């Protein structure tokens, strides 16, 4: 016969203080929860937002040319330098010696660095090899 343990009791601070590992779910005694074995800590943002820590950098955005991509002035973006730049990704490119945020558009006959704001012009080159792509943006950290 399965006895359902009161969840409030399981999560009581006294249990915690006594050094008992509290599981995030209520436990039915006699019927072990499959999730229990996997509880080994709180959510680690590094683990979820960063794929390869050695090639990942966080940089801060200045300007509003990527507004329509959801990237605002003052946001931080996560950049992974190990990712191959492809058509459609947001990249940090070196333009006139500055790290610059653009949408990469690889077309048949040319490559375009697009701003995501109509007030800013595109940069057009003949091929990818003419560009220095510093890294690929994977996430934007925006304060709401």
């Amino acid at each position: 016969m399965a006895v359902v343990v009161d969840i409030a009791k399981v999560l009581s601070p006294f249990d915690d203080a006594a050094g008992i590992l509290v599981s995030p779910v209520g436990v039915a005694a006699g019927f072990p929860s499959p999730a229990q074995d996997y509880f080994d800590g709180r959510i680690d943002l590094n683990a979820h937002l960063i794929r390869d820590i050695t090639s990942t950098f966080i940089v801060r955005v200045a300007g509003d040319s990527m507004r329509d991509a959801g990237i605002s002035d003052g946001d931080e973006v996560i950049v992974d330098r190990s990712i191959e730049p492809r058509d459609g990704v947001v990249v940090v490119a070196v333009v006139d010696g500055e790290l610059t945020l653009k949408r990469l558009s690889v077309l048949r006959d040319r490559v375009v660095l697009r701003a995501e704001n109509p007030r800013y012009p595109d940069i057009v080159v003949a091929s990818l090899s003419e560009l220095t792509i510093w890294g690929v943006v994977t996430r934007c950290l925006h304060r709401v």
Partner: protein
Amino acid sequence: MSDQRTALLDVNNFFASCERVFDPKLEGRPVVVLSNNDGCVVARSAEAKALGVTMGAPWFSLAPMAEKFGIVARSSNYELYGDLSSRVMEIAGRFTSHLEVYSIDEAFLHLSGTPAQNSALAAELRATIRRHTGLPVCVGIAQSKTLAKLANHGAKKSPYMNGVCNLDDFTPERVNAVMESMPVTELWGVAGRTRKRLTNLGVLTIRDLRDSDPEFIRKRFSVVLQRTVHELRGIDCISIDSMREIKGQIIYSRSFSTPVTTRAEMEQVLAVYAARVSKRLRKQGYVAGALTCYAATSRFANAENHAPFVAVRFDDSTDDPIQIAAACSQALLGRVVDGNKYVRAGIMLHEISRAKPSEFLEIFTPVSELRQVGRALDTVTDRFGASSIGLGVAGLKSARRWEMKRELLSPRATTHWDELATVFAR
């Protein structure tokens, strides 16, 4: 003969290259990095070397040249260099069964492939580090550490090699020619009196030394130089620690009798090592402006290699063991993984200078002014007592450094949230 090979990985002009990672404008421009304490050149980009900028030159003496050639100066940003270094080392660790970190920008990798496989691996390592961190590196591959160093030198000097030089690709005649073209002083630790005595014996080039009788060299010089002869003949026999000591660095590094597996133990180790390394410093009358600190797991352990390596810059140069120990603990312990079996650790000191208590005043204040300050102090203390006023050296010092930082220190873009690099969206 063993198929084991040693590769020396070395970041080109490490400090200057780090400065370029977040500031691409510096690409192609002469860059120098200054010590924070006295504003002397501690690192140069290739362009700055080509202009004849020498190591140790005070920045103010370079002013006319700097203006003419557009030389850019930066204060040492040890936080940035330390972080980029650990990224390079972590990537390198994926390419070998055993990584030995030799310094902040150099590491030895053990390779066991065919010559062609080793070269291909080194080329991939080089491309990966460049892409993932932005740093340019060179790799030299040979049968011993000393030969790997020579090969690395070749990779740096000959652009056609694309940054990888594998001595296995050289015919014996070509190796002879390379060694003949290099004076013995190109070797680690051969200088001064040793060089003179070698010259008197007709040993001028690296080839001459290689072809000397090892027994003779041991009797006339030392067992260390004898090992160098063996190394030049392809026998790997110099440990990484003796190599560091040959290079004349102030370092304390040891293997443990039993592995250290917890942070708490590692903290104790670091405290002891800090006391020992600072003693060496004090004995010679020096203070250090920065340090690097590392720990490493065994190369024979089945678990993954782990070799955390950190760098710390002091606000004020120091020989204080407590400060050195605290800096090591603070920087390294966070990277030590509980449960890993660490078999060695070490502390290396950098930006070594003579300990001078009033160095700031001596350098920047005319003597006459010092005397006036002294007289004013005397007047005040005569009237109000000895503890009423003192020289605010600390205050003056930090004010000056703050000024310098604002001007020349690049952002600590990978370790400080409020100093992240800027990307422009405009």
